[in-house]
């Protein structure tokens, strides 16, 4: 007979003394953190060597709630911080965990350049299609036609297709799942942790307080139902074909899984070739 346990398996990964967290009821960010903790267990990474870096925003608070070496940086600059951290300390597994506004709007330049360089980090982007923390403004992910505080008559800007942006910039691992697909999310995280190079996971997530409410899309549960009914898993789909429309079908899955030398590898190779034994690296591979 199995014994009942009162310990939540995710609890050791959380700074429980910081609870309650700031996320709204029905928000999907906490769900992704749960997946993250489970992925850490499954991947058997040495936890003391895992560092989490966030930017600013609702998802930007993730680093602060996770009981690992964690850095809550400035708006949009989690990726440059992570780049410096990883290059200085190649033994670390560096995970950037932030939102769509932080990573793709204000931090968009760093996103494409880190993917281009193939910095050996994992970037987890919780995409709720809006700026949640600051009141629901239009983001570069807001679907055309969606209402936001700064688009009261409907958004008329074409949004970024994040997997396509990541792949065309050079990411070696690209996947998209939703907060409904918790097992897939956790599995994707395990794969991303094991991947050498710039791995990217987009996780669609409800923002019932702002995005769903302003667009009359119901609450968090309604959004989960929508994700369940309208997500189509197409592993290997071409990322150019995975645009997201307002309440249309969503293509999800693992889209990219390729090999390419990392920034550390190309740097070491180039500098060793040029400087010979004068080159002193900082270890890692």
């Amino acid at each position, binding site marked *: 007979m199995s014994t009942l346990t009162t310990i939540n398996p995710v609890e050791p990964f959380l700074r429980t003394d910081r609870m309650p967290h700031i996320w709204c009821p029905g928000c999907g960010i906490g769900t992704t953190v749960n997946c993250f903790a489970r992925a850490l267990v499954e991947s058997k990474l040495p936890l003391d060597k895992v560092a989490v870096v966030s930017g600013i925003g609702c998802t930007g608070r993730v680093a602060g709630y996770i009981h690992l070496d964690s850095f809550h940086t400035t708006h949009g600059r989690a990726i440059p911080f992570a780049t410096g951290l990883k*290059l200085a300390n190649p033994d670390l597994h560096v995970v950037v965990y932030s939102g769509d506004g932080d990573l793709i709007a204000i931090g968009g330049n760093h996103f494409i350049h880190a993917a281009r360089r193939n910095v050996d980090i994992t970037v987890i982007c919780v995409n709720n299609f809006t700026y949640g923390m600051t009141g629901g403004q239009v983001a570069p992910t807001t679907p055309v036609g969606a209402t936001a505080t700064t688009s009261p008559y409907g958004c008329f800007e074409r949004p970024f297709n994040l997997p396509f942006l990541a792949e065309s910039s050079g990411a070696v691992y690209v996947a998209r799942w939703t907060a409904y697909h918790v097992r897939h999310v956790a599995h994707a995280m395990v794969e991303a942790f094991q991947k050498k190079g710039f791995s990217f996971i987009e996780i669609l997530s409800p923002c019932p307080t702002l995005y769903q409410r302003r667009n009359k899309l119901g609450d968090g549960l309604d959004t989960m139902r929508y994700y369940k009914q309208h997500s189509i898993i197409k592993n290997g789909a071409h990322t150019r074909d995975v645009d997201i429309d307002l309440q249309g079908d969503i293509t999800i899955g693992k889209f990219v899984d390729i090999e390419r030398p990392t920034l550390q590898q190309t740097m070491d190779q180039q500098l060793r070739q040029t400087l010979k034994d004068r080159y002193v690296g900082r270890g890692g591979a």
Partner: protein
Amino acid sequence: MEDELASSMAILGATWGGAKAFTVTSGPGFSLMMEHIGYAAMTETPCVFVDVQRGGPSTGLPTLPGQADMMQARWGSHGDYEIIALCPNSPQECFDLMIDAFNFSEEYRTPVLLMMDECVGHMTEKVIIPPAEDIKIYPRRYTSLPPSEYLPFRPGPDGIPEMAKVGTGYRAEVTGLTHDEHGYPAMNWQAQHKLVSRLVGKIRNNADRIARWEEHGLEDAEIVLVAYGITSRVAERAMQMARAEGLKVGLLRPVVVWPFPDQRIREWASRVGAFVVVEMNYGQMVYEVERCAASQARTLLLGHGGGMVHEPQEILKTIREAVQ
């Protein structure tokens, strides 16, 4: 890195990763770095920023000198903080002060600025590099406490907390939000007072130890030239010309410009007739001199918009005015 926002943040990541890191810029790039000077101050991240000053504002005069970022160095990032800034006037000092800058940054856990100007930045002169073993390095303040007893932002007796090595089990949280000794965000005025007064105090209370200046010909001086960076070398020439005319002129050169050598200026103010501040801007450090001189000595500014250094003759002319 792709831009100055990225480079100024990458060095902070590198510092937490265990490296010593700095970044270099000029003009608009310095403006872009301001947010991360504030983040480094708030998170007490040792690092060095080098600004090779050009004429401004905006794109201004690339490759031509200026000294108009001195107040930006002091106040450029939003919010309250103190900063350490050094001002070399020769290639030798660029080397020597860079070491001092890193040592200050480690000792006080603060960003340190090396405020050069284009002339010093492009200058070619002999530089003596001492043997590595003769260079004093202030080691990073790593904690010796076990993780269970360690609080990442608990100040030591000198007001400065110890760092933990990332990747060794301390699992510290670092944030740019106002935080408590755990490093946890604390959104209240008590936490704000406690943290920011400590950040300001750790520099301000040690200002006399950090301040550094050079004096030339001040023993009998009635007029004190105050100049820094390349301008101090032109001022020294003007001082010699004035001395040849029998004018009692000396030169005070702040080497550490922030914190400003308040006490030394006050001491001279009670003994001399006037200060002549020579700088490649339309008045920045002159306000510091004026503040310290109070009403004890006159303060004159010989400003200049940048693009080229002062002529010694114009400084001489201002000295003559100051004598009257």
